[in-house]
């Protein structure tokens, strides 16, 4: 069995009082709780802290933990002889047990000793995983490979970490932040308790061209100044291939041209739209002829794009 330094994880002294441990836990929980925290790695850190606190907050568990002595974190060690009796089991091998799983079973020993026995239904643990998928995958629907490490109980009821791999089908209709539920794919229930669920949190990879907002997509559409003035028809990429888009004469920068139903499909029915946002692009190096034509245009045009500045100044 590998040693875990619960005091080290929480950053408290081995002699810390119950009050100190509780206060430290609260501080760390506020900092790392996955529902609250945005710190990278917060979820992992909170799991470690939560596991440490589960054992250290309970005087009996803490005493049992202290009897293991002090070792290097991750170091293989053997508990002192007879130490396992408090877990209510007979002889068992410590080799592939996880210290945290073992302590979560601690109360079993106490329950056995008392009336009623240890046959309480315990539901399996829920798990949450983020699935990163591409916009193309969200559009078509996809399969993702998932791997989980979940505790499974042996005949004696002791938990062992088991790697479980499976494929999950993500139906089309996904977008950033949406959740999926895989019933029964979490931890196994105990004594007839229901199996836990697996929750998938969808996160979209950034796309080179499209930006997603819900099921709508946004695309920058650069136009040459003369295209914007005269109007044109342009070829625009969509997730289902190229389509033709009519740009009306007098189109200005920032204008949104809507391509109905060319966005992401929605889970129940229908699909979002694709919006092409117009940008006016200018050639960085204009040729002599181009410059001459623009000069001619500048002289001929009465267009004043800043008329409102002048009107404002005259007030």
């Amino acid at each position, binding site marked *: 069995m590998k040693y875990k330094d619960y005091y080290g994880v929480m950053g408290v002294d081995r002699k810390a009082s119950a009050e100190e441990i509780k206060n430290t836990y609260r501080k760390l929980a506020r900092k790392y*709780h996955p529902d609250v925290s945005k710190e990278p790695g917060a979820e992992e850190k909170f799991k470690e802290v939560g596991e440490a606190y589960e054992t250290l907050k309970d005087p009996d568990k803490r005493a049992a933990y202290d009897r293991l002595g002090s070792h290097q974190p991750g170091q293989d060690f053997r508990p002192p002889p007879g130490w396992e009796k408090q877990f209510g089991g007979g002889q068992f091998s410590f080799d592939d047990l996880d210290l945290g799983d073992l302590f979560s079973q601690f109360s079993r020993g106490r329950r056995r000793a008392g009336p009623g026995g240890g046959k309480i239904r315990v539901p399996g643990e829920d798990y949450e995983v983020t699935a990163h998928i591409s916009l193309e995958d969200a559009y078509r629907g996809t*399969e993702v490979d998932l791997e989980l490490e979940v505790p499974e109980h042996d005949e004696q009821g002791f938990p062992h970490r088991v790697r479980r791999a499976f494929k*999950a*089908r993500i139906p089309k209709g996904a977008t950033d932040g949406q*959740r999926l539920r895989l019933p029964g794919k979490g931890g196994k229930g105990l004594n007839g308790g229901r199996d836990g669920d697996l929750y998938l949190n969808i996160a979209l990879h950034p796309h080179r061209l499209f930006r997603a*907002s819900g099921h709508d997509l946004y695309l920058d559409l650069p136009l040459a100044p003369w295209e914007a003035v005269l109007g044109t028809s342009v070829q625009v990429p969509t997730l289902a291939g190229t389509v033709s888009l009519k740009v009306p004469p007098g189109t200005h920068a920032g204008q949104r041209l809507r391509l109905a139903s060319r966005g992401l499909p929605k889970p129940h029915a229908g699909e979002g739209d694709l919006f092409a946002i117009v940008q006016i692009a200018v050639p960085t190096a204009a040729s002599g002829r181009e410059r001459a034509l623009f000069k001619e245009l500048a002289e001929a045009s009465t267009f004043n794009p800043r008329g409102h500045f002048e009107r404002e100044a005259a007030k």
Partner: protein
Amino acid sequence: MKIEQATWLHEHYEFSLAELCELSGLSETELRELVDYGVLAPIEPDARDWSFRADRLVVARSARRLRKDLDLDPHGVALVVTLLERVRDLETELRDLRAKLPRRQQQS
């Protein structure tokens, strides 16, 4: 390898009160408390049997974790969940605005 089918948690699916309790790990009393505090709203509050939009499960599970992990009383849970919902709404709005912003402008 068998392919597992996943179901969406979105507003077009519904859970009954009992289902929401089972899946979130909250007791019926706790769930009713969240409704009283305005954190969770049933689809039809006047109906005899409450049902909830499936995406409310995310909120209910978050409430259970917060209660258990941060040792909060129901009022504290309600406050935190309400604020978290607001953060989530603002994040969604921010993502929407970013999507609408031309990329060249974003880079500068």
